[in-house]
């Protein structure tokens, strides 16, 4: 059953491609913790020539925390911008999520196009809802412009790529 949720990876090309899976872990609050696997592929907008912008699905952050919707623009196979069509966050973590977690995810997405840093160590788990919405946006872009459709499956979790740029040294 789990296996069937793993979409076959298509078109891994010479540059880094993100693939993702949600790996089960301790639930942090009960509600919304039961959703498990899916795979997501990003960085696969290679078929897109002219500029395209797409908005992903509205994804719940789980646990009544809020929701997020990601907007992506791509041109000539590169993501040119990532933004938020919507972000509602409630609860004690809201400042952290809106102020730091989501900006990090956006910079990771941008850097996936080829930044000098390939990954960041230090966990983020809020990324699931972001990734699911991002994936939906990439799927739309791929449909619009090319054959390298990004893959999304099942129940709507996903991943972001292993890249991030920016950030100053201390």
């Amino acid at each position, binding site marked *: 059953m789990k296996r069937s949720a793993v979409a076959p990876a298509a078109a891994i090309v010479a540059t880094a*491609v993100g693939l993702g899976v949600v790996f089960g872990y301790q639930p942090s609050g009960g509600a919304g913790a039961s959703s498990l696997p899916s795979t997501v592929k990003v960085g696969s907008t290679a078929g897109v020539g002219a500029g395209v912008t797409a908005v992903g699905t509205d994804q719940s952050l789980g646990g009544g925390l809020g929701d997020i919707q990601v907007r992506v623009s791509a041109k000539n196979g590169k993501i040119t911008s990532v933004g938020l069509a919507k972000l509602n966050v409630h609860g004690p973590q809201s400042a952290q999520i809106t102020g730091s977690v989501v900006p990090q995810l956006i910079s990771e997405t941008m850097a996936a196009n080829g930044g000098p840093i390939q990954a*960041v160590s230090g*966990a983020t788990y809020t990324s699931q809802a972001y990734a699911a919405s991002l994936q939906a946006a990439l799927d739309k872009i791929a449909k619009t412009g090319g054959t390298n459709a990004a893959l999304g499956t099942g129940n709507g979790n996903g991943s972001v790529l292993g890249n991030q740029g920016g950030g100053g*040294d201390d």
Partner: protein
Amino acid sequence: MGTVVSLAIREAAATTEAVEPASPASGPTLDAAAARALALLHDVDTVFSTWQPDSPMSRLRRGELELAAAPPEIAAVLGLCRRARAASGGWFDPWRLPGGVDPTGLVKGWAAERALAEVRLAGAGGGLINAGGDVAVFGEPEPGQRWRVGIRDPRAADRLLTVVTLGGHDRAVATSGAYERGPHVLDPTSGEPARGLLAATVVGPDLAFVDALATGLFASSGKALARVAGLRGYSALLVYDDATTRATLGFPSTDALGRQAA
């Protein structure tokens, strides 16, 4: 909550054919390897999940399943946990957690290493796996380049504290921190959430151990730093509550970071 895992793969460069052991693997071969890697992660999750009540690990924890009758990976992982417990001076201790033995602190890195091996053995020129911020690499990101991994500033998710360059035996890095999921690493001596550190990062040759040692360092509030520094091939960086940092001499970053012989 799930941990997000991402996998980056680079095809072997055609120009290095002469030094590659086999013909460079390309798209379809690597696609299949990546699919196997992802399937492997799901399989590991099915066996080891501690929050799915029917998983073999959960049944073992409740005493409903004997170790001898459990999937053999469980005994293998628990063996690694024993070694990691000894290496950490007892600070990483899956046997001293509420609810029975819980190898979660090591199994994520262990699974990620196995998944990454699938693409390495398929002939990729380079690869990186990022399991919720715990990272392992092989090869090169681009021919002649080295993998660089940012270490998140625990006070701000969009800032990096420093960057480590991986290569040689330094091929895995893991960070244990109190941010985002809140205090969740327990001090095995008190049973209370560990205090005193914002984050602990460990670099070394194998992500399973690196992951466990980062957890142990955090659980020790930094007291295990000398112990980790004494392990051949491992280095560490601590960020204290007051944002001061302390790194072992071998930590593969060019920043000062309060570096000292531990």
